[in-house]
C-alpha cells in the first residue's frame, strides 16, 4: 500500500528528525518480528471481508506472519524526545503504516508541577493494555475489543499538552489534545462492529469493510483510509489521570472528533466516505497486588453520520477485566469482556452484542524472545446476518502460538 504524499511527508520529517539527532548519543532502535502458528476459526475474518471477529478466519491451521515493527527514538536533548514507529503486516494485504511519529518536549521541573507538550502522530491515551513495544500488549497477543478499535481507527494528528502535579505518594495529571484527520473514526463500528485483533493500523493503511452481496454475485472489496482528511475539522480529547503507589492508575477520558456528519469525500468506486461524529467516555483503572496485575477498562459512546436525508446513529459500549500474574519468565493472563452496538432503525442493521474470553501464557526465556500461547473464544450475535442467509450467532475459537523476536 502506497502512503499518500502528506503521510510520506510526515514519515520523512520524523525520520529526518531522527537522522539529524543520529550524532547524539541517545538514538535508539527498537524492533520486533512476530511469526505464529494459528488455528483459525471458520467464520470469515473481517480482514477477509467477513463478519468474523478474529484476525484469522480461514478455518485451518497454518503458519502466519504476525507483523513487524521498527521504532526509532532520539533523545535530542534531555527535554526533547522524538519517536517514529513504522509497522508492517500482511494479513489483509501487504501494508506498511506509520503508527506513530511525534516530538515530545518535557523540561525538568524542580517543583511538584511538570508540564509537557507533544506534537505529531500519536495514540490518544486510552489503552492501559498496550504499553509494550510498538503499542503491543505484554499480556496477550490480542488486545481487548476496546483497544483493538483504538488500534484500528483512532489516532491523533495534532498536539497534546499535559500538566502534572506530583505529591509525596501520588500524582495527578490533566491532559488535553487537539487533533485532525480522525473524522472517519467510528465508521467501522456500525458497519462491521467490534473486532478482537492485534492489527494496528497506521497512516497509509486501509481497513477492509464487510463484503456486501451484489446482483451479479461479485462482492467488491471495499477498503477505506481511517485517517483520511474530510473537512479538516478539529477534534479534541481530555483526560484526568491519578497515579498512586502500587502501580495504581485511574484514567477518565472524553473524546470527540468534532466531525461534520454531513461531510463526505469521494471513495473507491465512486461511493462516498462519510465523516462520523464520534464521541465517547473511557474509564480505565489498573493496580498491582503482589505479583498480580489487574486492568479494567470501559468505553461508552455514540457515532452519527447524516448521508443525504438519512440519519444513521450508533451507540457502542464495551468493557473488560484482565488479570495477569508476573511469575518471572512466565506470565499467564486471563481477560473477560463484553461488547455491543445499537444501530438505529434506518441503518437496516440492528447492531450486535457479544462476549469474549482470552487466556494467554507468555514465556520470556531470553530478553530477545517472547513465546506466547493464546486461546480466545468469541461469541457474538448480529441480527443482520440472518437477512443474508447466515447464522446471526457466531462462535469462534482462535488459538495462536507466537514467537516474537525483540530488539
Amino acid at each position, binding site marked *: 500500500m502506497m502512503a499518500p504524499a502528506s503521510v510520506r511527508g510526515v514519515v520523512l520529517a520524523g525520520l529526518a528528525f531522527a537522522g539529524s539527532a543520529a550524532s547524539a548519543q541517545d538514538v535508539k532502535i527498537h524492533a520486533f518480528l512476530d511469526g505464529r502458528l494459528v488455528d483459525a476459526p471458520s467464520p470469515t475474518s473481517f480482514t477477509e471481508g467477513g463478519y468474523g471477529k478474529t484476525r484469522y478466519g480461514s478455518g485451518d491451521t497454518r503458519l502466519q506472519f504476525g507483523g513487524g515493527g521498527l521504532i526509532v527514538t532520539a533523545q535530542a536533548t534531555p527535554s526533547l524526545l522524538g519517536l517514529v514507529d513504522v509497522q508492517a503486516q500482511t494479513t489483509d494485504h501487504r501494508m506498511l503504516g506509520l503508527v506513530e511519529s511525534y516530538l515530545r518536549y518535557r523540561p*525538568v521541573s524542580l517543583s511538584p508541577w511538570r508540564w509537557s507538550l507533544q506534537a505529531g502522530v500519536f495514540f490518544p491515551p486510552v489503552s492501559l493494555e498496550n504499553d509494550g*513495544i510498538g503499542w503491543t500488549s505484554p499480556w496477550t497477543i490480542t488486545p481487548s475489543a476496546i483497544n483493538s478499535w483504538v488500534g484500528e481507527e483512532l489516532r491523533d494528528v495534532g498536539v497534546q499538552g499535559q500538566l502534572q502535579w506530583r505529591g509525596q505518594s501520588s500524582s495527578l495529571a490533566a491532559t488535553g489534545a487537539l487533533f485532525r484527520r480522525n473524522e472517519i473514526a467510528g465508521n467501522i463500528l456500525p458497519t462491521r462492529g467490534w473486532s478482537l485483533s492485534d492489527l494496528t493500523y497506521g497512516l497509509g493503511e486501509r481497513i477492509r469493510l464487510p463484503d456486501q452481496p451484489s446482483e451479479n454475485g461479485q462482492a467488491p472489496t471495499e477498503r477505506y483510509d481511517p485517517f483520511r482528511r474530510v473537512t479538516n475539522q478539529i477534534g479534541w480529547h481530555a483526560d484526568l489521570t491519578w497515579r498512586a503507589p502500587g502501580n495504581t492508575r485511574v484514567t477518565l477520558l472524553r473524546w470527540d472528533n468534532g466531525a461534520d456528519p454531513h461531510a463526505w469525500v469521494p471513495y473507491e468506486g465512486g461511493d462516498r466516505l462519510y465523516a462520523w461524529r464520534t464521541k465517547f467516555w473511557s474509564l480505565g483503572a489498573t493496580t498491582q497486588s503482589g505479583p498480580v496485575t489487574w486492568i479494567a477498562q470501559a468505553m461508552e459512546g455514540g457515532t452519527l453520520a447524516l448521508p443525504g436525508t438519512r440519519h444513521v446513529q450508533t451507540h457502542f459500549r464495551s468493557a473488560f477485566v484482565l488479570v495477569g500474574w508476573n511469575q518471572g519468565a512466565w506470565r499467564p493472563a486471563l481477560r473477560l469482556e463484553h461488547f455491543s452496538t445499537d444501530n438505529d432503525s434506518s441503518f437496516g442493521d440492528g447492531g450486535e452484542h457479544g462476549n469474549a474470553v482470552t487466556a494467554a501464557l507468555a514465556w520470556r526465556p531470553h530478553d530477545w524472545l517472547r513465546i506466547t500461547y493464546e486461546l480466545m473464544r468469541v461469541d457474538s450475535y448480529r441480527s443482520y446476518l440472518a437477512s443474508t442467509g447466515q447464522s446471526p450467532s457466531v462462535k469462534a475459537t482462535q488459538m495462536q502460538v507466537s514467537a516474537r523476536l525483540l530488539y
Partner: protein
Amino acid sequence: MRRAYQTLAGLVMGLAANAYGSTLVVHVDDGHGRPADSAVVTLQSPGGDAAAAVPATATHTIDQRNETFIPYVEVMRPGEQVVFRNSDNTRHQVYSFSELKRFEYVLRPGTSSPPLTIEGSGIIAVGCNIHDEMITYLFVTSAPARVTGKDGNAQFEGLAPGNYQLRVWHPQLKPGDQGARLEAVVAEGSPAAPLNVHLTLLPDPRASMDREHMGY
C-alpha cells in the same frame, strides 16, 4: 497504621527478651515471609545520644546502570556529600524537587555529577526526567542507620548495653504508613537472634530496561 503498631507492640515483648549482646541484627520482611531489602533501620538510645559508632563516609555514590539507580536507598548523615555516576550508555537527567534539596544534573555516559552536600535530615526522592521509572532515595539522618540487604538483615555492631528505639522505613510503605517503631534491649553476652519486623509493602514501582517495555 494502627494495626501495624499493634502488631509491633506484640513483637516488642519478645524482641526485648531476644536481643542480647553487643551486636543487634534486625530482620525485615514484607509481611509475606519474604526478606525486604532496602529498608532503613535507625537506632536511637533513649537519651538521644549516638547509639553506636557509625563509619563516616564523606561522599556517597549513586550509580546508574540499566536505567536503574543503584542503590535503591542510600543512608547519609547531614553534611555528607553524594555523587551521581552514569554507567549507562545513555544520557540521564538526575533531579529532585524535595524540600530538603532541589538539584538537577544532566549526565552523559561515563560521567559523574559534582559532589553535592546535603544539609539537614529527611528523605530525598531522586528521579530521572528522561526515564520516569527510575527512582532512588537518600535517607539523611544523624542517627545510626543501616539498610537491609537481600537477606532482609541490617546489623549494628559495637553497641553499648541499654534500651534502644528502632525505626524501620521502606520506600514501598503504603501512603500514610510511617513504618515500624519498636524498642530493643541490648545486653552483654553472645549474639542474639535477629529481631523480626514485618512491614506491609506495595509492589516495586521501578522498571529496569527491557526490550518489550520501552517506557517513553
